[in-house]
């Protein structure tokens, strides 16, 4: 059955000859599980990465979302239903992850706010980047620089220290203070 749908989608000429009443699924439906996975794995991974910040955890959480969603979801659901379900699953998976690790929900997924992250096609424009730009713009030069070096450019603490012409221990203190200040700026911007 799945095969038939796929063949039909791949051959638009044939599809047009099919009487519409024979179509059991929407045009916007996935033909099978494989299609659901291929279309959504990167979206779910990016979403999780944006929420936890590291690859191994983002991979684990992505795995958990798909393994959890596999059984209850029927393969021929519409694209919108599939995304809504993946997002709802991702929300609880993420919440459980934070409760298990740091004891409080550090980042959350909100169906209304974050649905754009899943549906954005091609992959979502980075709203994170613009918020980061605005936060960094408010910081003194050296604070902004250390955060850019460490978080955006992937420098080690040693490399960052050399670039800034300070000792490693000074760079650590600078980074810590810069992050605290960035948090204060971010909180001010949200209120």
């Amino acid at each position: 059955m799945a095969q038939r749908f796929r063949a039909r989608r791949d051959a638009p000429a044939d599809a047009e000859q099919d009487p519409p009443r024979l179509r059991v699924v929407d045009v916007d439906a996935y033909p099978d599980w494989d299609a659901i996975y291929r279309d959504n794995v990167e979206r779910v991974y990016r979403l999780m990465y944006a929420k936890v910040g590291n690859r191994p955890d983002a991979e684990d959480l992505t795995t958990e979302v798909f393994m959890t969603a596999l059984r209850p979801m029927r393969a021929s659901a519409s694209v919108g239903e599939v995304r809504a379900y993946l997002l709802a699953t991702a929300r609880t998976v993420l919440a459980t992850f934070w409760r298990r690790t740091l004891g409080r929900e550090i980042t959350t997924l909100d169906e209304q706010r974050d649905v754009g992250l899943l549906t954005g096609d091609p992959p979502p424009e980075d709203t994170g980047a613009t918020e980061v730009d605005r936060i960094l713009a408010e910081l003194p030069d050296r604070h902004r620089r250390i955060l850019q070096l460490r978080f955006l450019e992937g420098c080690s603490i040693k490399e960052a220290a050399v670039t800034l012409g300070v000792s490693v221990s000074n760079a650590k203190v600078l980074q810590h203070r810069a992050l605290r200040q960035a948090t204060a700026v971010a909180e001010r911007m949200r209120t």
Partner: protein
Amino acid sequence: MSPARKFVEDMLARRRVRRAETTEDDAADIRTAILLNSARPGGDRPDEEFVAKLGARLAAEADGKPKGNNRRRFVQTTSVAAAAAVLGATVDHLVQPSPATEEATIVPDQGQWRAVVSSAELVEGAVRPFDFGTVTGFVQRAGGDVHAVSGICTHLGCRLALDMAALRLNCPCHRTAFTVDGAVLFHQLPSTPPPLPRLQVRENAGNIEVLVPQRPV
């Protein structure tokens, strides 16, 4: 080193999050660190090998179960009109008319406030079922606010079962599920059923109370 600093060092070294006790200040710094990290160009691209492996694992899982499509076809022929009639018969005069895509609020014209659970017991994230004969449903606290939704499926009126682990309300009849705040999670019906009607709820004298009709409807 504070939990926040440890987290940041782990994250920058691309390591997993480690268990730790955190304060609200730690959490705020960690949030900022994750946000800064997310702005790194290309950092969020999934590893191809990971994508391939997980795909293979899911395919193996999917093959392990029967692919019964007959039942689904049967379900899809269920009349929408029948569903609408049943829904209309049960909550007709309680539900404010609204488009099917918006949730209605049930406001009894002769109602009474009935306590479901003490405020203290309904902690953040908790969900509690209630059944007053005239109306059944679930109260939940999310983001500090308390909500109540009807516990009856809007398709054919089956009573929903709470799945606390997945935080959802399952319909035993046609594989339909709602979120605990009433939105449709998934279904196999010809058209999306309306979200669950909301019930009026308040916190009063240390209790969570729901406004319910006095007579069975």
